[in-house]
C-alpha cells in the first residue's frame, strides 16, 4: 500500500511538472511578445522603452535560463506577477478562490445528488414511461451549453418570477442559480454513466442470486447494484471537478460574479500570461489531487483491487477510457 501511494504521488508530481513545462512552452516559447502587451499596445511606446520592459521581465535572456528561473520560483510558490495589475499571481488567485469554491462546491453536491437520484430512480421504477422520461434527460443536459442554461434560469427565475437575484454575491440566494447552472452538465454525466453502469450490473449473475434469496428490487438496487455501479462512475470524478472549474468561468461571466472565472477571462483578454499560467496550473493541481484521492478510494471500495494488484497489477484506469471520453460531453 505504501509503495502504491508513493508511486502515485510521484506520478502526480511528474504530471504537475510536465503541465508546468507545457504551459511555459505554449505561453513563452511561441512567437508572441508579452513585453509589448505589458507596455501597452499604443504606438507611443518607443523601442527603447520596450527593451527596458523586456529586460525587467527577464525576456531578453535565453529561453532555457528563463525556464529554469521560473521553475525555481514556482517550486517556492512564486508564479510571478500579473502583467496588468502587478499583483502576485498566487495572491490574486488565492483571493479569487473562495467565491468560486462556493459555487463549484454547491454545484458538485447538487450534481451528485441529481445524477445519482436520476440513475437510481430510473433503475428501481417499474413504470416504463417514467424510466424513459428520466433517461432522456441526460442527453439533453449534456447538449445544452452552460451559458444557455444560465441565461434560461435567469430569464425564468429572476426576470419572470423574481425568485432569485440576477447578479451579485448576496448570501445563499445569490448562490442558487449559479450552482444550478454549473451542476447541469456534471449531473447529466453522472446520471448517464451511472444508469448505464447500473443496467449493466443488473444483468449480472449475482443479481439473480440476490433475487433468488428473496430480495426485492429496492434492496437489489441499493444494496448490491449501486456500489458495484458506482466504481466506474468514480473514475469520472477528476474530469467532473476539472469541468466545474471551467464551468465556473462561464457561470461567473453570466451572473457577473467575482472569482477565478472573471480573473481568467480578464487575463486571457489582456494576454496576462503569468495569470493564465497560474490558472492552468491550478487546474492541473486540482485534477491530479482528485485523481489521487479517487485511486485511494478505489483501494478501499473495491476488494478485487487489493487481490488483483497482487496477481495482475492492473489499475482501473485503462478500462474506462471510453467512459472518460464520453464524460467530456
Amino acid at each position: 500500500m505504501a509503495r502504491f501511494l508513493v508511486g502515485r504521488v510521484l506520478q502526480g508530481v511528474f504530471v504537475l511538472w510536465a503541465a508546468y513545462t507545457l504551459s511555459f512552452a505554449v505561453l513563452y516559447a511561441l512567437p508572441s511578445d508579452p513585453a509589448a502587451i505589458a507596455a501597452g499596445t499604443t504606438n507611443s511606446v518607443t523601442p527603447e522603452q520596450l527593451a527596458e520592459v523586456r529586460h525587467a521581465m527577464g525576456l531578453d535572456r535565453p529561453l532555457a535560463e528563463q525556464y529554469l528561473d521560473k521553475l525555481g520560483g514556482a517550486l517556492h510558490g512564486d508564479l510571478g506577477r500579473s502583467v496588468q495589475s502587478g499583483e502576485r499571481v498566487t495572491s490574486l488567485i488565492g483571493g479569487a478562490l473562495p467565491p468560486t469554491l462556493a459555487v463549484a462546491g454547491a454545484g458538485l453536491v447538487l450534481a451528485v445528488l441529481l445524477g445519482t437520484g436520476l440513475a437510481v430512480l430510473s433503475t428501481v421504477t417499474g413504470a416504463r414511461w417514467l424510466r424513459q422520461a428520466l433517461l432522456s434527460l441526460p442527453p439533453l443536459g449534456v447538449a445544452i451549453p452552460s451559458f444557455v442554461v444560465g441565461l434560461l434560469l435567469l430569464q425564468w427565475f429572476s426576470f419572470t418570477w423574481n425568485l432569485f437575484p440576477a447578479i451579485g454575491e448576496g448570501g445563499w440566494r445569490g448562490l442558487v442559480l449559479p450552482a444550478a447552472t454549473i451542476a447541469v452538465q456534471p449531473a447529466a454525466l453522472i446520471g448517464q454513466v451511472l444508469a448505464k453502469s447500473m443496467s449493466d450490473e443488473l444483468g449480472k449473475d449475482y443479481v439473480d442470486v440476490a433475487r433468488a434469496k428473496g430480495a426485492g428490487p429496492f434492496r437489489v438496487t441499493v444494496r448490491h447494484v449501486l456500489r458495484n455501479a458506482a466504481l466506474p462512475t468514480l473514475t469520472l470524478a477528476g474530469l467532473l471537478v476539472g469541468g466545474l472549474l471551467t464551468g465556473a468561468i462561464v457561470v461567473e461571466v453570466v451572473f457577473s460574479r467575482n472569482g477565478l472565472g472573471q480573473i481568467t477571462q480578464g487575463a486571457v483578454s489582456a494576454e496576462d500570461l503569468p495569470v493564465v499560467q497560474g490558472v492552468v496550473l491550478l487546474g492541473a493541481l486540482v485534477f491530479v489531487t482528485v485523481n489521487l484521492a479517487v485511486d485511494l478510494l478505489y483501494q478501499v471500495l473495491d476488494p478485487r483491487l487489493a487481490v488483483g494488484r497482487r496477481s495482475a497489477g492492473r489499475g482501473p484506469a485503462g478500462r474506462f477510457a471510453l467512459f472518460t471520453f464520453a464524460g467530456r460531453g
Partner: protein
Amino acid sequence: MSVTDLALPAGERSPEPGPAAWRGFRKALLRSLAGLLRNPGLALSLLWVALVIVAAVAPGLFAPGDPLAVDTAVRLQAPSFSHPFGTDRLGRDLFDETVHGTGRTLPAAALATAVGLGAGSVLGLLAGFLRGLPDLVIMRLVDVLLSIPGLLLALMLVSVLGKGSTADVGLAIGVAAIASTARVMRAEVLRVSESGFVEAARTGGARWTRVVLRHVLPNSMGPVWVLTLLLFGEAILGVTTLSFLGFGAQPPTPEWGSLVSSGRDFLGSAWWLSILPGAVVALTVLAANRVSRAFDAERGGAR
C-alpha cells in the same frame, strides 16, 4: 449489416462487388431507411444535422436577406411571421443572423474535430501498435494534456494564438480534444490486437504490416465514426462557449455564441435575442450526439 459498414466502399469489403454484393448493399440500405421510419427521433436528428450543414454552406438558401441590414423601424421586435426569431436592437433580423452564423460556427467546429481526431488517432494508434517505450511516452503526454481541463487548455492557446478569429478558436478546441481521442483509439487498438483473430493471423504467418492493415485497422475504425460525431457536438459547444466569452468572432460578424452573448443585455426585455440562438446550439449538439449514439448501437448490434 450496420450503418458503419455502409460507410466503407463496397469494393474494399469483398474482392469483387458482383450483383450479389450490390443486392446486399441495397437491402441493407432499405433496411436502414425502414429503421429510420421506426425511429422518428433519429430521423429528425439526421434531418437537423443535414439542414445545419446546408445552412453553413449556402446560408442564402434559408435566409436570402443581408444579415447585417439595419432597420431601426423594427428594433427589438418579438418573433413574428416576418421575423421568425425577432429582431435585435438595430432592427437586424435574428433569423438571418443565426443562419449566417452557422457559416462561422460549423467550420470552426469541423476544424476542431479534424485536429482532435487526426492528431489523437495518430497518437493513439502509434501507442497501441508500438507498445513499449513509445506507448509510455505518448500516454504520459496524454496524461498531462488530460490533467488540464479542456476549456482551460483552449483558453491558454487562445491567449497566445490571438483573439477574434473563429479558426484559432477551432484550432484551440481541437488541440484540447487530442488527449481523449488518443486514449480511446489506443484502448480500441489494444482490444482488437488482443483478440483471437489477430493471433490467428499471426500464426497464419502474416507479417506485422499485414496484421495491422488487414485485421487491426479495419476492426478499430468502428468507434472512429462514433467518435467523430461525438467530438463534433463537443466542438460546437466549445467553440460557442469561447465565442460567448468574447474570444471568437467579434461583432457585428454573426456567430452563434457571440449572438447569445450580445443578446444577454436584453434578457429581461427581449429574451429571444439570446435564448433562440442558444436553442439552435443545443439542438445541433443534441442531434449530433443522437446520431453518434445510433452509430454506436448499430455497431454493438453487428457484433
